[in-house]
């Protein structure tokens, strides 16, 4: 664990020693909540809006990330499908994990995923996220992303071309419109299972269980 | 040289003494010599005083046989400067004595008569 996150004692301005436990004091330790879909009519309308306003947070973990860039170019122009890039997990609704995940990266991916707001969707990109791809027997990468977080769409390929990405986004839209994009709720429901899987891989667990 | 009467001689002597005294005061580095310079200066002043009170062809302001008791005012010199000079001499004596005391004290403390050794206080 990083030194900064260990418990420490500081002296208050009055000269009183204070015990600081950074993980408790500085991070919220609330559990994720399950947000049930509401009124079906409203929900249907909302899903249409969610599907047509995909704000993408791209996590360029591996070489697959290179395939994200062309989407913004005139040739593919993903904007016309309502896909836009958003650099902060707070505002993004689609999380694109692009490529293999080393153990170290997984920790960041989990954290980023948890910081997004419900409902949120995950697109995993490239073979590495499905079965490890060319790193399937690496000591330091994971093989299946959906062991660690609910994935809505896998896009196979090493690497998948932009066209496949667009197809993946279209698939995601369909899923959302059908009301099946409830990954965030799944994550909350099966929170303990996901956490157990994550902790199995991530040995140096130095964060609260859920990163708000 | 006819004009060179007693009055002028004493006056000039006095002024010369004063100047010598000041010269001594300003140039000598030995404390004792400085004191001597002062006494010369003082003596010079006394002589000047006497010379100023002197009136030609008159006698000392002591009333005895040589003075006509009815014409005292015209036969003796002005008595006041004479009286004053006595007082001045006394005072000069006191001052000189005090100066020497100081010199003594200074010598006792620092075993030196060199005035430049007593410049600790300045600025």
């Amino acid at each position: 664990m990083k030194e900064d996150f260990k418990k420490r004692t500081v002296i208050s301005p009055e000269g009183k020693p204070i015990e600081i436990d950074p993980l408790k004091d500085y991070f919220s330790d609330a559990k994720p909540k399950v947000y049930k879909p509401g009124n079906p009519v409203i929900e249907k309308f909302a899903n249409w809006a969610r599907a047509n306003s995909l704000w993408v947070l791209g996590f360029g973990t591996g070489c697959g990330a290179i395939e994200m860039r062309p989407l913004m170019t005139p040739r593919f122009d993903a904007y016309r499908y309502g896909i836009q890039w958003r650099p902060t997990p707070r505002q993004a609704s689609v999380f694109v994990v692009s490529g293999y995940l080393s153990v170290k990266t997984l920790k960041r991916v989990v954290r980023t995923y948890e910081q997004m707001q419900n409902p949120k969707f995950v697109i995993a990109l490239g073979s590495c996220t499905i079965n490890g791809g060319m790193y399937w027997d690496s000591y330091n990468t994971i093989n299946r992303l959906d062991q660690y977080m609910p994935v809505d769409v896998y896009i196979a390929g090493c690497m998948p071309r932009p066209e496949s990405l667009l197809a993946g986004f279209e698939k995601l839209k369909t899923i959302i419109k059908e009301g099946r994009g409830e990954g965030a709720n799944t994550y909350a429901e099966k929170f303990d299972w996901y956490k157990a899987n994550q902790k199995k891989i991530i040995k140096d667990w130095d964060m609260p269980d859920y990163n708000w | 040289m006819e004009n060179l009467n007693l009055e002028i001689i004493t006056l000039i002597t006095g002024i010369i003494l004063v100047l010598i005294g000041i010269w001594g005061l300003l140039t000598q580095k030995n404390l004792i010599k400085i004191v001597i310079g002062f006494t010369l200066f003082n003596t010079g002043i006394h002589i000047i005083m006497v010379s100023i009170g002197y009136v030609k062809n008159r006698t000392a302001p002591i009333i005895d046989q040589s003075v006509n008791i009815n014409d005292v005012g015209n036969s003796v010199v002005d008595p006041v400067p004479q009286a004053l000079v006595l007082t001045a001499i006394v005072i000069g004596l006191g001052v000189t004595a005090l100066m020497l005391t100081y010199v003594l004290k200074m010598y006792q403390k620092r075993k030196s008569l060199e005035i430049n050794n007593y410049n600790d206080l300045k600025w």
Partner: protein
Amino acid sequence: MEFKNIGYALLTIFIVLNYGLILQGVVRKIGARVGRRYGIRWYQPYIDIIKNYAKRSTITHGVMFYIAPVFRLTGGIGLLLFMPVIFGSDIFGNFSFAGDLVLVLYFQFFGILGMALGAAESGHPYSAIGISRGLSQVTSFELPLTLGVLAVAMQYQTLNITEIVAAQQGGFMNWTIITNPFAAIAMLIAFLGAMGRSPFDVVLAPQEIPIGPPTEFQSGLLGVLQLNRAIFPAAKLILFMNLLFGGATNWAELILKTFLIYMWPVFVGTVFPRFRVDQSIRWFLTVPLIIGIIAIILI
């Protein structure tokens, strides 16, 4: 003031909100076309807002954080409502009887300040950096703007926006941009800064400090901010239209004029790359300032 004013105000807000959203979409479309892209759908801003309101979870960093969007939107709506939107219309004169041009100029800051406070409470350093940049830039273009406003107010001998518009009626030769060109130029350059488009958009630098001050806002809070992003620029456009381009006597004129005025920052923004903050401060305090001083001297 009567209750029907509130109704009229709501009507104005509704029209301007829609106009602002469409304008946003259209302008982005234009930007895309300049870049030879097809671009977003013109109604994409609506979808985005609905999407954000449809988010189910929200986080908050504290009270100020929570009410910051409220400040922001109140600032935008207030700015709009304190101006006469349509010249000569009782209905769309709104609350302009409450204060004059000075009120409008200073009320802009209501939202900026509130937003800055809320964003800062998130404790996110990028928010703070964005605010630092934003405030720095605001101060610098405010000087030419003030000089221009003083020149215009002196020209018409009034601070009353309605009277300023009234004085410009009767053909475009009466518009301030023609009658008082230096003041108008100074104000229009300041307007570039006020719109926050390139080259003055380092405040929101999307990748470097992820979209700047609102970086922590999400869901409904972001939705409120998006509403403001539709109303606030529209209100500013209306202000400049009123001051420099003779105002509008009906909605069609308003839409035409504001659209064309908006093309000015859009054009500049499409052509020029981004300034650093210190560069933009220096720039605003040289060329536009000199133009503003000339405007004042010529009065």
